[in-house]
């Protein structure tokens, strides 16, 4: 009996301690969100390259040094899902990355803080930002919901050694789409076992091709318009080059985890990737002999995609003036140059691009040039739904298991049904 009591007393104590510990955790979290201490929570995703993390960490360190405000990092591995749960639960960071493609849906939900009053108070000049990157964070009410940190466009990466092996050089790369597809056919016969062009079956990489015949991927009401005959016509050559000629393959079809692995491994002559691949190639594939150039024209016009990510403030942040301080600090000329140089990304400020001499950098110049005519990765509030449906079905179209028309019709119907459900 005595023993029993001792044991039960002990167990009770353990239970009580556990309960206190749980309660303690809760209390600690809420005090952090309360922000009475000088700490800002910053949400971001890591990106592909270690340099990017290095640049970001330096930004945070510099900010703490300059203001004394500590930074609590919150890394998102699955941004869309995690940020949404954080917003529902009221635990979202004070300042976080926002991709231009999701700005519209976040802004219309009212979870982002407009920055206009802060910018006005500090007389913050915006003319130095590249207009498309700045406009990407302007909401449909004309207010500014974020400031761009950097941007990226796409380019055509080529493998010098493989071109040479086929008897060509970089100057032989055709400048128009029809010639380019013919060139891929020649490469295929001259280089057995090598894929002429490796692509990624993603809406973000194909949107500018789809819109090259004048149609938009969304309707005026923001619904999916992927089954527009003009869009099908625009995308058909690329799909045929895979399904029929096998001169274009998706990285999954040739068994790689990403297009960069296929290109870095010397298994493909061309890769259509973003500027972010430059630093990845320099770090991971040091021996590879490669170069970059602008895309061939599509239907006679230059076309490309522009992606931009910015810093936005949580409308529920408890520390808005410090949050603004942070955004202002990290998008300043000096810090932007530090970050862009370390992470080798394209800066959103013209003056920084000039200071970095990017127009003379032979690897980066095609990407900077493309910013002048590229299509922004923005398409209304339902882009995520449209994108998921497209990426679900398009691999089968590239494999020739289903016609492009059927694929895009199905993707459109399915997406639009879901969009109707949200109303």
């Amino acid at each position, binding site marked *: 009996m005595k023993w029993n009591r001792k044991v039960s007393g002990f167990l009770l104590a353990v239970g009580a301690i556990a309960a206190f510990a749980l309660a303690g955790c809760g209390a600690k979290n809420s005090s952090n969100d309360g922000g009475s201490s000088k700490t800002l929570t910053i949400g971001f995703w890591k990106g592909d390259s270690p340099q990017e993390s290095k640049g970001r960490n330096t930004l945070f360190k510099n900010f703490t040094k300059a203001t004394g405000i500590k930074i609590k990092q919150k890394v998102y591995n699955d941004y869309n899902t995690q940020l949404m749960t954080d917003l529902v639960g009221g635990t979202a960071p004070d300042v976080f990355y926002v991709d231009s493609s999701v700005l519209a849906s976040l802004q219309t*939900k009212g979870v982002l803080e407009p920055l206009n009053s802060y910018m006005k108070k500090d007389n913050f000049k915006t003319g130095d930002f590249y207009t498309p990157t700045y406009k990407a964070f302007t909401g449909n009410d004309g207010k500014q919901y974020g400031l761009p940190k950097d941007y990226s466009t796409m380019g055509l990466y080529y493998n010098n050694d493989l071109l040479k092996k086929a008897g060509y050089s970089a100057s032989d790369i055709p400048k128009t789409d029809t010639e380019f597809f013919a060139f891929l056919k020649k490469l295929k016969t001259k280089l057995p076992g090598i894929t002429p062009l490796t692509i990624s079956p993603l809406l973000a990489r194909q949107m500018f091709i789809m819109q090259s015949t004048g149609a938009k991927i969304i309707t005026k009401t923001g619904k999916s318009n992927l089954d527009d005959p003009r869009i099908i016509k625009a995308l058909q050559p690329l799909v045929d080059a895979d399904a029929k000629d096998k001169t274009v393959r998706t990285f999954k079809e040739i*068994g790689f985890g990403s297009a960069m692995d296929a290109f870095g491994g010397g298994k493909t002559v061309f890769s259509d990737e973003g500027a972010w691949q430059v630093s990845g190639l320099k770090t991971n594939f040091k021996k590879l002999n490669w170069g970059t150039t602008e895309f061939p024209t599509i239907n006679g016009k230059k076309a490309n995609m522009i992606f931009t990510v910015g810093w936005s403030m949580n409308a529920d942040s408890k520390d808005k003036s410090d949050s603004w301080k942070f955004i202002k600090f990290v998008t300043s000329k000096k810090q932007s140059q530090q970050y862009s140089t370390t992470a080798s990304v394209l800066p959103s400020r013209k003056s920084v691009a000039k200071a970095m001499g990017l127009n003379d950098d032979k690897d980066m110049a095609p990407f900077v040039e493309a910013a002048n005519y590229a299509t922004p990765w923005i398409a209304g509030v339902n882009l*995520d739904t449209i994108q998921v449906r497209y990426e*679900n079905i398009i691999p089968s179209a590239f494999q020739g*298991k289903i016609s492009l028309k059927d694929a895009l019709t199905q993707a459109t119907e399915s997406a639009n049904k879901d969009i109707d459900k949200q109303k």
Partner: protein
Amino acid sequence: MARSSERKRDITQAAAFVLPMLLVLLIFTLFPIFYSLYLSFNKVNLVGDVSYNFVGFKNFTNAITDERVIIALKNTLKYVVVVVPIQSILALVLATVLNSGIRFQKTFRSLLFIPTLTSSSALTLIFMFIFSLNGPLNSLLLDLHILNNPINYLNDQGSVMWAIIVMNIWSTVPMFMTIYLSGLQDIDSAMYEAADIDGANMFQKWFKITVPQIAPVTNYVVMMGLTSTFQLFDQPYIVSGGSGGPNNATLTLSLVIYQYAFRQFGTMGYASAIALLLTIAIFVVSMIFRHFSSENVTGEGR
């Protein structure tokens, strides 16, 4: 008097012991169940301006006419129908072998249990490597001249679900095998001795004694198998990057629920309705199974 005060103390003690678990159950199990029940009858917006609009059974009628839900149901059912029998039979066979007194049986037991200890996402990544176009499986089949061209198992709408089925059977069998092993030790060895005297062979003993005697364990294994297979999520999510592709081949009910709940705004209620339908489906299938299975093991076999 003394007895009643002792009884009182016992009750207080019992309550103190039960309370923490009860609280956990209330907060993390019962509350979410009732909350999602509530959500399923509403049109919900949880981000920004929180709003609940009662819509009656609209979410449910939408769900049963939703093409993607139907496709997901078909995929899930195919998966359940293939995986549950195979994993149960394989587990019993392996357990019998490991219980038969072969050499190194303890070593085999530990080795076979390893898959259960590994996290399912790590397993999925390993299997994605094995099944990849330049992976070991293709190299092996090419070297043995079984295939002329490598198959892209994970990028082909026809084969991707089968790849997931294989990886899942591989990872769940050991768990059920262990459950069977403990069940096998409960079977009276006198029965096997009697069968030996009657001149029964190995297979007769297995079918006439082991299988009927182990029926209660089989019930448990099949039931657990049904509930876990109906909830298939992690492998399709990792393989398809959350899209359920290629061409809806890996779209399962759990993945559809996830997409509606967390990938787009304003369909949380709809996702809850599908989740409720999934629960009902699992419940009905389990009940049907229970109805046709018997746990009445009398000690003589049946």
